[in-house]
């Protein structure tokens, strides 16, 4: 029932009159959905459904591939619970939204420091769409028909890239990796470069967790062609920033800086570029300025690149992004600070190596498949069908890694295992014992 005052002011007796411009033939009478639930009923019902899930807490889990579970300081959840942040929208009125704007400017600052890029936008949907947008941006920097990517890129991201490139009718071509080290095959890269290549993309660490060490050689081979690097921002606490080796655009996934895996969303697409390309960049950018009284202030800037001004000439259609996730990453990085961030990144490297060594001692297993240096992830070879290994592990109360067979058949029965600082000795032991039982 509508309040009498509304009916009176509008001079109507029934709410139906408000909808009488809808043609008769297009009307529906209500919605055939279940009845509404009281809060307590809703909680009980959803509780019952969520109980059917087994979480990463319920079973030691070694899945990665771009989505990781890391330690989240309690402070981050407190910040994310501030409804002043989460119930606001895009700061179109900067004077009333300085909190969000400053938080996003700080996020951009942290990411600029980690990636070495001159400008980092205030977020993309995720790493995969950041890759799609990066490729489109390359096509605005340089004409061409081929986009080169390392074969050692996440299959999930490759699939999204393909969709994004359809709009400019460009082709994706893969550059192989060295079967011994797992690193990019530079000779193959050199043979595939050419006038019609408008961009090159590789990930560091790559999908196999292997660090690309010959980045300076790669960079000089690429020359003037736009160079896109994908990186886990956490790894950048201890690995050279891509700006150091000539990247024009740096992208990555940042959800694990302060939020959980969320079953794959929301995530946080990191996107940064060099100064000379800023006007070709997609997404919202926060800039610093002053107010009428000369005080430090922030606002969205370079909006003439964006869809609400430029329409079909915009650099992207993106509007709603993942701002709150960027705030989480800001709070995470601020809470940890330099020392703890480096410590955590180091722990990931060391735990991965330790686990890899322990698995190498299990008869039948081969670990790691690649001899290059790893960050937090590594591939192993299994003595049995990788899917059956995965199932057997679940039977042991452990969730193994990502099976690589379908996307990288050349590796045989291979599995990609990810470790983090959260894995305890018991977790590692459970995995090792689970694998031993398979033998």
């Amino acid at each position, binding site marked *: 029932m509508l309040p009498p005052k509304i009916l009176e*002011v*509008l001079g109507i007796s029934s709410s139906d009159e408000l909808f009488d411009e809808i043609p008769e033939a297009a009307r529906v009478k209500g919605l055939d*959905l*279940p009845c*509404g639930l009281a809060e307590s009923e809703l909680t009980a019902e959803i509780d019952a459904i*969520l109980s059917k*899930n*087994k979480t990463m*807490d319920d079973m030691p889990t070694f*899945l990665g591939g771009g989505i990781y579970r890391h330690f989240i300081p309690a*402070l981050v959840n407190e910040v994310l619970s501030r*409804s*002043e*942040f*989460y*119930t*606001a929208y895009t*700061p179109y*009125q*900067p004077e*009333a939204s*300085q*909190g969000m704007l400053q938080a996003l*400017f*700080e996020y951009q*600052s942290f990411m600029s*420091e980690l990636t070495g890029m001159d400008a980092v936008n205030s977020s993309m*949907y995720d790493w995969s769409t950041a890759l799609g947008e990066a490729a489109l941006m390359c096509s605005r920097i340089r004409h061409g028909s081929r986009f080169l990517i390392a074969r050692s890129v996440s299959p999930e*991201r490759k*699939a999204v890239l393909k969709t994004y490139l*359809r*709009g400019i009718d460009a082709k994706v071509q893969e550059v192989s990796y060295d079967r011994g080290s797992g690193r990019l095959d530079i000779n193959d890269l050199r043979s595939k470069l050419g006038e019609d290549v408008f961009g090159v993309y590789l990930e560091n660490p790559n999908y196999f967790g292997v660090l690309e060490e010959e980045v300076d050689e790669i960079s000089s081979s690429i020359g003037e062609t736009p160079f896109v690097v994908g990186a886990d921002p956490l790894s*950048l606490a201890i*690995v*050279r920033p891509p700006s150091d080796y000539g990247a024009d655009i740096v992208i990555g996934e940042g959800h694990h800086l302060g939020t*959980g*895996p*969320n*079953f*794959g*969303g*929301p995530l946080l697409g990191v996107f940064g570029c060099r100064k000379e390309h800023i006007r070709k960049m997609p997404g919202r950018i926060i800039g*610093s*300025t002053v107010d*009428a009284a000369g005080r430090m202030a922030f*606002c969205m800037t370079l909006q003439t690149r*964006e869809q609400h001004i430029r*329409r079909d000439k*915009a650099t*992207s259609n993106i509007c*709603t*992004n*993942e701002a709150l*996730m960027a705030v989480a990453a800001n709070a995470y990085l601020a809470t940890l600070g*330099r020392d*703890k961030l480096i*410590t955590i990144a180091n722990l990931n490297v060391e735990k991965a190596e330790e686990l890899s060594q322990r698995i190498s001692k299990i008869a039948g297993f081969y670990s790691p498949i690649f001899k290059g*240096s790893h960050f937090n992830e590594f591939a192993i070879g299994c003595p049995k069908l990788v899917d059956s290994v995965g*199932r057997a592990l*679940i039977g042991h109360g452990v969730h193994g890694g990502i099976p690589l067979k379908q996307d990288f058949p050349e590796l045989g029965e291979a599995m990609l295992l990810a470790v983090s600082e959260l894995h305890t000795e018991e977790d590692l032991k459970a995995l090792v014992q689970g694998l031993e039982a398979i033998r």
Partner: protein
Amino acid sequence: MTYRQASYDEPLLFDMDSVEACAEGLLPSAKIPDKIRRKSLDIPNLPEREVMKHFVRLSQMNFSVDSGFYPLGSCTMKYNPKINEQIARDCRATCLHPMQDESTVQGALQIMYELEEMLCIIGGVDAVTLQPAAGAHGEFTGLQMVRAYHEDRGEHRKEVIVPDTAHGTNPASAAMVGFDVIELPSKNGRIDCDALRSIVGGNTAALMLTNPNTLGMFEKDVLEVAKIVHDAGALLYYDGANFNAILGRTNPGKMDFDIVHFNLHKTFSTPHGGGGPGAGPVGVRKELEPYLPVPRIMKEDGRYRLSYDHPKSIGKVRAYFGNFGVLLRAYAYIRSNGGDGLCEVSTRAVANSNYLRKRLESVLELPFGGKRMHEFVLSGDKLKEKGIRTLDMAKRMLDYGVHAPTIYFPLIVGEAIMIEPTETESVQTLDGFVSIMESIINEPAETVRTAPHNTSVRRIDEVRAARDLIFNYRSLLDQRQREKGMKDSAGR
């Protein structure tokens, strides 16, 4: 006036005192090869106490739905029930890896499967994908399907028609998918069927339409529009940004649309997150189902599974399945309301909008007259007589503790002010807003032109931001040093 937003001279995190580095843990692991080991990392070490104070202060300098009235047109800034937040923060939802074995995520798949089913009913469509991360991303997805549909028929239709009142994302999405954009001029605020007939043809891939449109007017000729478009072999796309207006009264399927996106963060009350995350599921009619992104969620013998075997699919538009955290909130919202509750949502949203429109018609001009749906657009042209502009009025509203409406959009209305009150606001709040607008009009022009006065900062120099291009602390430091250098040399 009593409103005053918190205002702190809150330093940037990087300007705070960093605690001296401790000896351990400072260097990258020796396991990182020298060739790629990082040499330095310039990030402060801050005490937790300072960090928390910082973020609480920033939050207090941020206007939000929970702080006050937020009639930002086209964005549907309704109140977000807190139970949805509590549910979405449950570890059984947040601590799931998207690559987990299907047997371990049956609950999550059930939520998504049932949400798809409910969106089918709400949208009058046959199948839904939850993958797109936002409304614009839904448009991108839908238009990829338009392209795939025509190509599958051996046709290479190149044009997408969008009305001149359309959201900017429509033409931008069409361009991203490789279409040429044809703008359709409106007539008296609505689609002109004759104009449409004259531009539609064998090269038309689709028409994108928002209904009600961005003026808040219902496109009464929608069925005729659909016929014109379909007769030309093209598809009709529904931009679901304004879905709040039609819940349970009509639906895109009934209006003969082929593809529709939903903005869960608008209609289904998942919070906007200060700019995101959102979610933009896309629904289609049967003929278009083969083109939906993979994976699809299937239910067989009471078990849920992910299916990738769809050869005509457009592929993936983002990693994994969508913004699950947002989907879960929308699921909770729809289940709380039920069918009847959702009908009340649209009824009250449209009633609130018309109530406010009626009361404000005497304050500012309402172009094209008549009734409106969930939102309406006033023209601020007559403010010019008082020496102020729409922008000034919007800034002055902030001083009264309300967020400004959307301004200067749609482009066909001069000095546009686009107001969407949503269903969650009381008559008292709406009356208060009317009084605020009335007072502002009667205030001295100078007060309004120099607004805002009560926000955490005064009017911001946006031109300077676009000129200086300072996007991070490093550039800000450089600028400070340059300015200090100039001052020093001037002082000598």
